[in-house]
């Protein structure tokens, strides 16, 4: 049996002033039933564009090649009706900013029950009961009262939990969470990570968790993909990937984060900044910032190749890399 979500050699180009602008190149990614998969990288690396493709939210004029299958069904050729069936019951999404997903002038109850009445055909009473259940599941205090409240009456962390309850309302099989905890305090973040993990265990929900925080990636996910400039540069079991990176970009990201304990020791920044789409250097996109660059890196894009058990890396160096301490 195939994976629940199976993206194969996906490429996406957006219309630009000087012709199509390639955003994603040759992205292959799978998420299994009940699996927690991490997607990491800096802003503009294509993480969110991948999510938008899978939800049919690409801007008009976007060109896609390759395939993205959900539960065996091709997504890239769906029409409007087809997308409506996939969104909600199949795939749901949680954004970094919960206010983006909640209507400010409708009560939480109205917004939660709407999904259930449309996607699950529930009547008002049954939907109300399930809404209370959902809010209870995301550990919102006093769910009955919360149903009558408006989004602005909650704190940021509570709003994000309401947004997650909303995403779960129609019983999706895959939840795409795009930096859902980035704007939150660590204590609130810990609660949301625990919630997602519990939902996966209890209901078999699959989660694709997009983040730039490698600590969150490690704490939550079993398997991860690291994106750079619209490509997957490294993939594998999260623990192995973060404790023994095989791509210089993963190693550089690890070096740039605080490693704790050594007060006064500076971080190791990655020189320069990520290239904009359409301004990629020839060859490996990371070659201009890479500490291990060789001549061959500047001519051809290195393909993903096996790099240890269940691991792949798109780098000519095939051994484990040191992380700058």
């Amino acid at each position, binding site marked *: 049996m195939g994976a629940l979500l199976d993206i194969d050699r996906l490429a996406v180009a957006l219309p630009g002033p000087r012709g199509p602008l390639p955003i994603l190149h040759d992205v292959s990614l799978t998420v299994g039933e009940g699996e927690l998969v991490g997607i990491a990288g800096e802003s503009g690396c294509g993480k969110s564009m991948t999510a938008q493709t899978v939800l049919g939210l690409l801007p008009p004029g976007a060109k896609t090649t390759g395939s993205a299958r959900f539960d065996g069904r091709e997504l890239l050729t769906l029409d409007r009706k087809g997308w409506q069936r996939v969104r909600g019951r199949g795939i749901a999404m949680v954004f970094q900013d919960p206010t983006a997903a909640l209507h400010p002038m409708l009560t939480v109850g109205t917004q939660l029950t709407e999904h259930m009445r449309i996607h699950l055909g529930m009547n008002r009473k049954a939907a109300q009961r399930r809404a209370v259940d959902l809010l209870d599941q995301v550990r919102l205090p006093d769910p009955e009262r919360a149903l009558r409240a408006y989004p602005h009456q909650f704190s*940021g962390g509570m709003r994000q939990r309401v947004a997650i309850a909303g995403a779960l309302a129609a019983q999706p099989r895959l939840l795409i969470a795009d930096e859902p905890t980035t704007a939150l305090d660590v*204590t609130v973040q810990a609660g949301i990570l*625990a919630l997602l993990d519990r939902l996966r265990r209890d209901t078999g929900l699959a989660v694709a968790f997009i983040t730039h925080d490698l600590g969150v990636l490690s704490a*939550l996910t*079993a398997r991860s993909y690291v994106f750079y400039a619209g490509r997957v540069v490294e993939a594998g079991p*999260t623990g*192995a990937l973060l404790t023994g990176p095989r791509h210089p970009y993963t190693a550089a990201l690890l070096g*740039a984060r605080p490693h704790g304990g050594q007060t006064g020791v*500076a971080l190791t*920044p990655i020189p320069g900044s990520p290239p904009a789409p359409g301004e990629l250097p020839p060859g490996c996109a990371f070659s201009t910032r890479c500490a291990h660059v060789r001549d061959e890196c500047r001519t051809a894009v290195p393909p993903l190749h096996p790099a240890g058990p269940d691991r792949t890396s798109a780098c000519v160096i095939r051994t484990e890399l040191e992380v700058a301490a």
Partner: protein
Amino acid sequence: MTLLEIEAVHVEHKPRGRAPVRAVAGVDLAVAPGQIVGLVGESGCGKSSLARVAAGLTAPSAGQVRYAGRPVTPLGWRRRNADEVGLQMVFQNPYASLNPRRAVGEQLLDGVPAEVAGPARRARVAELLDRVGMPATAAARYPHQFSGGQRQRLAIARALAPQPRVIIADEPVTALDASSQAQVVNLLVGLVRELGMGMLFISHDLALVHEIADVTAVMYLGKIVEAAPTRRLWEQPLHPYTRALIDAVPRISAEPVLPATLAGEVPDPANAPSGCRFAPRCPHAFDRCAEAPPTVATGPSAAVACWLHQPQPAHL
């Protein structure tokens, strides 16, 4: 010697038609030259209100802030007193301190002290840009022509123009990507280590504060519940809230380990619990916590406000 002293500062916000909110309820904090003091806490704990008072942007409702021994007077419409320009602030959003319609060089010139005259002024601008790792050609460009990380470096250059001795940085790297974050953090740490400035570094990123601060203060609902040399605080947190914050930081490990969760929500500061403010969420709360715990010294530049760590009364 301390450069910046915050003494018994209270900040009260009075929203129209609602009860006053005590954002800061009596805080003492000091920053010495060449020292980074980290201030951490959850959103809404009063960190930013305290930062604005410390920088003299708003007046405290009680208490005092002193810079180099003199009281800081809140900023008015007039040009700031020459003695006080040594106190500068860096904000989370670099646009808060850059004018989008003026070239970067012009804005940096504004801050260069009047004693520097003639061609030396332009030379100073080039030095400032170099200091923050930007090319001299940046002077002729406008803020929107730079990336977020570069813009934050320009905002730091602007803060450095009057040759400050203390910088108050309020979440300076929160909005930046991993690569620019490390660049800006290193720049700020370099300023303190090389130029002997003092810095109050406010962040909700505990791992980052752990990495760079000499002393860390933990704030909860308007009060500092614990302060200690960073390493000590991290290795041996005394206050249950400090422990909860540290345990909530996700870590990199070979197997996924979920960070520990803290029960409950941060209460609304408008009706903060009486007694110890953390008690309703504290796993160790007991009878005494109904009364507010005093802050007691636990070592050099270390103090905690918790009933679990009070010197035992002699008669017991």
